[in-house]
Every structure is written in C-alpha cells, then in structure tokens.
C-alpha cells in the first residue's frame, strides 16, 4: 500500500522544490536573533512588566479568529479596540446574543451565542448542518479544524426526540453597520461561521472589513438579522414556522490596553517613486484642490420606466424582475439595474445527469456576444485567451461606434445616471462572435465545473453585431460599484448593467488643499506595516490617481459624501507573480485609509 500511495502523488514538482528553496533562502535573510536562553529571560521580564495587561488581552473574538487564521491574526486583533457587548434578543424559543466585538482598521469582528430560551426543550441547529450529524460537535471545522465526535454520540435528531423538543434552524448575521449615529449601510461582504457547542448552544462569528461602510468612530451600531425555522427530524424546513427579526446592538470599543494601542510596526520599505504615473484631473491642476460632494442614495426602482428598455410589452412582473413578452428581462436593486435578452431555456445541470434538471433562461447570441466582449475587457479566464482582440472597426452592420455611444448616453440621461464617459469599446462583428464563441464553447466543454450553455455561434447574423461599451464616472471603490456595461446593436441595447451607488449632490465641503500625493507611498507602507499582513512588501507602485470615492461625512449625521481620494495601484510579490494589481484608497482630505487589498 505504501508504495502504491507514494507513487500515486508522482514526483514532487520542480516549482514546489523551488518554493521550498526560496523559503529557505528567506530564512537566511531573516535570522532568528534570540537564543532560547534570551527568549526565556525576555519572556519572564515581559510577564513581570505586563501581568495586568495580559488579563486585559484575553479576548473571545481574538481567540476565536486566532484558531481559524493563526496567531498573527489573533495578535493583530488584540491590538484593536474591544467592546464586551452581551446584548441579547429573543425570537420565539431562541435567544441570540452578541458577546464581544473588536474594531480594527475599518473592520468589525465579533462573536456571539445562540441558545434555546430558558425553559425551552428545543434543539437548535445551524443551516449548514443536518439533523443526522452528531450533537454538539464542530465536524465541519467552522472554528478552524474539524472535530471528531466520539462513537456513540447521539445525532441532533436523536437528542431532539429524547428531549421531546422541536428542532429549530437558526441563523444570525449582521446586515448593516452605522458609525457614531450615522446612516446604517450594508457591507459588500460579510464572513460568518456557526460552531456547535457541547451544551447545545451555537457560537457564531462575523467579520466585516469594508472601509466604505466602517470607519473609525466611537460608537458602532450593528443591525443584526436573526432567523428561526422549525425543521423535521428528516431535515425538511417547515417554512410556515419561519420567524425573522432585525435588532440593533450598540457598542463602544475601547483599546484593550495601553500596550495594545502601540503595536510594534513592521518595517515595510517605502518604494521608489521612479516610473510612477500621477493622474490628476485638470480641476486639481488649476485649483490645487477638489470639493467634497454630498452623496445621494440611488434607487433605480423608484419611477422605473420599463419601456425605456423594451417595447414588446410586459409578460410578468415579480419582485425586482420584469419579464417582457420577447423573454428579455429587466431586474434591479436600489443601486443597480440589469437588462438582458433571453430566448428559451436550458438545463443548468446538463453536465451532471445525477441531478434533477433545472431550467434557466437561455441568453440570445447578442447577449452571449456581450459576455464574450466583457471577458476580453476583464481578461477572463486569462488574458492570453483573448490576446490581440482590440477595437478594430468603428462601423458594423447598421451601427457605428458613435451611434452606439449616443444610444447608451441617451438612456443614461433618461435614468439620471450622470457623469459617465466611455473608457473601453470593442466591436463584435459576425466573424469575431463566431471565432470567440468557438473558443468559449471549448472552454466550457473542457471544464467540468462550468455550466454555461453551449451555443451555436455559427448562427450569428449581422443583426447580432454590436459594440460593447464600458463607461466609468471617475468614482473608484474596491469593485465595480460605479460602472456601466452595454452591448448596443442596430436594434438597440441587448445587454446592460448599471451600478451607480450614489448620485452626486451639492458641494458638502471645499477643502483648501488636499493631501500631497508624494506622502502617499510612505502612508501605504505604514498602513501595511500596521495591517494583518505586516510581512507583506511593496514591489512597485505603478500609479497614484486622484479620483472620488464614497465615505461617511465628517459629521456622521450628514450621511455619505463623495470625497476626493488618492487611488494607489501597486503590487506585492504575490501580485507580481500572478500579474495582478493591488489597490489602496486614501481619503485625499484627511489622509485616512478608506479601503485596500490588504484589509
């Protein structure tokens, strides 16, 4: 068996050996300076000096995340600000508690407990678990490493039967955050975990790192979403028993100790400015500053006019989705709007016959052409796939590039989406649609996990030809929160995505000057040194651009603003290796870091 299993892995790849060599080389450059004896003595001295501080360092949140992410992250959290919250909410037979929250560098990290209410004989289970799993064991490794339940451990269903209680599926997560009484905002991404405990309770965690929503403040308001639903012993949800609630938690984190507020910063060298591109608008060149604008929350659902997109008539209206008679679909959220053409359906499980067929709308060829062009712009699945494909023609069947831009800009004006200009265009004629379509079909066939439909691109006709357009408005964030993509044919817009989080309002403030861009590289180095990845280095900075980004107003009660910001494009060694860029966004008015790849 041993030989078989050894051969099974094959030889150790050269790239792996190189990485081992590289890592060992690094150890030569980072010698361990202390002998064991010195370390022991130092440890004793530190213990004597900081005996009081050590007690204050005991944080549930830091310990929880330390198990998942390691000691460095635990230490990093311990240098943040902590609040023992202990606020609870009872929903039906279940009590939800937020136990402790840590604020650190535009992020909130918390742990809480969910338990059956006193006197209840219910058994609770998270929606990631099943009733036939052992009661009270973290077999999924939600807290870092999977636990093994001893043989004979009763299942959740068995415990419920023994207690004569209901099985309740529970979930808790924060859905909005407010700072110092300001507007409650939804983060872009929330990490959560649910860890079963031996006593039948569930310990849950949440982590939110989003500089646009969370900034340094005194008091944080966390809007918590809770859900309880009864489940049968066979694991079937009884949806008519579902109860949900949103409740708020106020917390005022404090530094864990004086020592904790002054972490020893790692030494991240400030990169050279040679070859760096500084991009600033003319207004800044002339005035040396830019105004801060109020940001008005967008709501595309208000006064929506479906006939702006399609005149075939409405076949069906559901929540946030309109299906037209020609099968095209219009959907929206407050900050985004999507319109796409479809024709017919396809089985999304066509690659796995063991699964029940599940039908989804089938995109038209021009919609598919739009997706292909979008892949070229974003370099997906990799840039070499579409190498050499650039804007070639400015006139296609029945439409020119200028016509296409005019059609899109007319629609944007009707939607009150202002300030956007064309940043990218690609012509998609019949030959290009067919050749790129063939490549995409091959990729789909080769990858067992991809399930987009295989389309017959040989059927592409002149009516499918169009221009793919990408528009931006100079507001930059950690993703495409402000962007327009469209595929415009002679017949009109076949595919459209608009994301426009805020409308620019009146001038909120007129700062006399902005932070000097020459200070930004040093600020970036300092922020990395203080981050959860202090060992990271900066290989190069390619550009620093003065742009706008959303942020909370200086007076939190005033809501959000669009503030001038320095957007830094840089690379660390990993990004260099994968030919990818990293970013960091600094508020150009006060110099604070708003968002970055390393957060």
């Amino acid at each position: 068996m041993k030989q078989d299993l050894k051969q099974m892995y094959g030889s150790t790849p050269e790239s792996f050996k190189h990485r081992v060599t590289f890592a060992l080389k690094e150890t030569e450059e980072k010698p361990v300076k202390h002998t064991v004896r010195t370390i022991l003595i130092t440890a004793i001295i530190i213990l004597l000096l900081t005996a009081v501080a050590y007690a204050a360092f005991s944080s549930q949140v830091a310990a929880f995340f330390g198990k998942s992410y390691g000691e460095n992250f635990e230490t990093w959290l311990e240098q943040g600000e902590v609040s023992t919250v202990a606020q609870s909410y009872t929903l039906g037979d279940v009590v939800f508690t937020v136990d402790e929250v840590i604020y650190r560098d535009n992020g909130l990290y918390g742990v809480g407990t969910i338990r059956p209410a006193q006197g209840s004989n219910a058994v609770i289970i998270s929606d990631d678990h099943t009733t036939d799993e052992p009661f009270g064991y973290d077999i999924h490794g939600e807290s870092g490493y999977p636990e093994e339940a001893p043989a004979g451990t009763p299942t959740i269903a068995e415990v419920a039967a023994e207690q004569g209680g209901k099985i309740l599926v529970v979930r808790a997560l924060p859905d909005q955050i407010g700072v110092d009484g300001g507007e409650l905002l939804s983060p872009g991404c929330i990490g959560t975990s649910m860890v079963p405990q031996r006593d039948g309770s569930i310990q849950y965690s949440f982590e939110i790192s989003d500089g646009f929503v969370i900034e340094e403040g005194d008091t944080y308001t966390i809007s918590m979403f809770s859900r309880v639903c009864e489940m049968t012993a066979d694991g079937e949800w009884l949806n008519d028993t579902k109860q949900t609630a949103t409740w708020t938690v106020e917390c005022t984190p404090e530094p864990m100790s004086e020592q904790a507020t002054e972490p020893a910063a790692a030494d991240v060298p400030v990169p050279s400015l040679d070859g760096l591109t500084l991009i600033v608008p003319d207004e800044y060149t002339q005035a040396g500053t830019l105004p801060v604008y109020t940001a008005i929350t967008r709501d595309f659902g208000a006064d929506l006019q479906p006939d702006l997109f399609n005149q075939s008539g409405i076949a069906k209206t559901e929540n946030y989705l309109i299906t037209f008679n020609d099968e095209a679909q219009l959907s929206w959220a407050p900050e985004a709007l999507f319109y796409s053409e479809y024709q017919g359906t396809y089985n999304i499980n066509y690659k796995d016959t063991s699964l029940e067929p599940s039908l989804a709308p089938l995109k038209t060829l021009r919609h598919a052409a739009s997706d292909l062009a979008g892949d070229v712009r974003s370099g997906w699945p990799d840039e070499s796939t579409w190498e050499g494909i650039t804007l070639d023609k400015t006139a296609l069947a029945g439409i020119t590039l200028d016509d296409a831009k005019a059609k899109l800009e007319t629609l944007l004006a009707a939607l009150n989406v202002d300030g956007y200009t064309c940043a990218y265009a690609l012509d998609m004629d019949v030959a290009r649609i067919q050749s790129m379509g063939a490549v995409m079909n091959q990729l789909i066939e080769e990858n067992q996990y991809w399930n987009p439909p295989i389309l017959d691109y040989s059927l592409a006709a002149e009516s499918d030809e169009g221009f793919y357009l990408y528009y931006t408005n100079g507001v930059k964030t950690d993703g495409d929160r402000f962007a327009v993509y469209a595929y415009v044919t002679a017949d009109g817009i076949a595919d459209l995505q608009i994301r426009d989080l805020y409308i620019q309002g009146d001038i909120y403030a007129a700062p006399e000057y902005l932070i000097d861009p020459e200070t930004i590289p040093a600020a970036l180095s300092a922020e990395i040194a203080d981050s959860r990845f202090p060992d990271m280095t900066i290989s190069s900075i390619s550009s620093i651009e003065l742009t706008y980004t959303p942020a909370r107003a200086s007076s939190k009660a005033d809501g959000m603003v669009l503030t001038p910001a320095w957007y830094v494009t840089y690379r660390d060694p990993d990004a260099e290796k994968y030919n990818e860029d990293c970013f960091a966004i600094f508020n150009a008015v006060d110099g604070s870091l708003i968002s970055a790849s390393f957060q």
Partner: protein
Amino acid sequence: MTQAEFTDRIVAMQDTLYRVSTTILPQLCDREDAVQGAIEKAWRKQGKLRDDRAMHAWVIRILINECYTLLRRRKRETLSDTLPERETAPDALPDLYELFTSLDEKYRLPMVLYYVEGYSVEETARMLKLPQGTLKSRLHRGRLLLKDTLDVEEVRA
C-alpha cells in the same frame, strides 16, 4: 539549530511536505504558498521546539495548519461553480489518486502520514491532534474503503 541544519532537514522532507499539502489542497500554487508559509513560521518559531528530534512532526503540523488556513480562505473566495480541479504531477497515478481523493479528508491525512510517510500511530495522532483510538479507527475505515484496490496491512502501534 543552525540555519544550515534547518535547511538540510527541510530539504530532506520536501517530498513529504508536497504529499501532505497535496492531500489537503487541490491546487499546486496553494500548496506552494502553504509550504513557504510553513517554512517561514517554523524558522521564526523554532525557539518553541523543545526537542529537535521532533522537528519533522512539528513542521508537518505547521504545514497542515497553513493548508487549512488557505483552504478556508479559498472556500470563502471561490464560487461553487468554479471550484478548481485537483492538479497532479505528470507521473502521478491518476486513477489511484482520484480514488484516494474521493475519500473523506479525515481518512486521507492519517493514511498519508501513517502509510506513506511511515509515522507511528502515536506520532500521527500527535500531528493530527487526535486520540490514538480515533486515529486507528480512521486508518481502519480508510483501509476498508480502499481494500478492493490496494493490499492492506495491519496498523502497527
């Protein structure tokens, strides 16, 4: 331990490090990241190692932690319909490898450490932070699952 001794020991166990990381992580680039992280951590924390003779098991433990940290991060980042396929070396035995990776991970790691790398039950249990009884039952179960394909041998304590 000197830097040269440390280097010699790591180089001597690099095949083991490859197999252990391959047992957990499907992608080669992640295995490389994990091994680099593990070596750096092991070097920085070698003062915590009380007995140099236990270095192999200690480094493997650090590597396993690194792998799980990466795996956890990847799960958060990756959409379910874009899960990567497992990457194997050109001279690997694909059928056996596929069969082995179809086993639950809780069986794979003990089997690799015990059968392939030759650690004792006690050493393997310590590395995986498992009771010896649990480890033995996992090895037993893993053998049963592969019994039609491979010769089996008894667990040696």
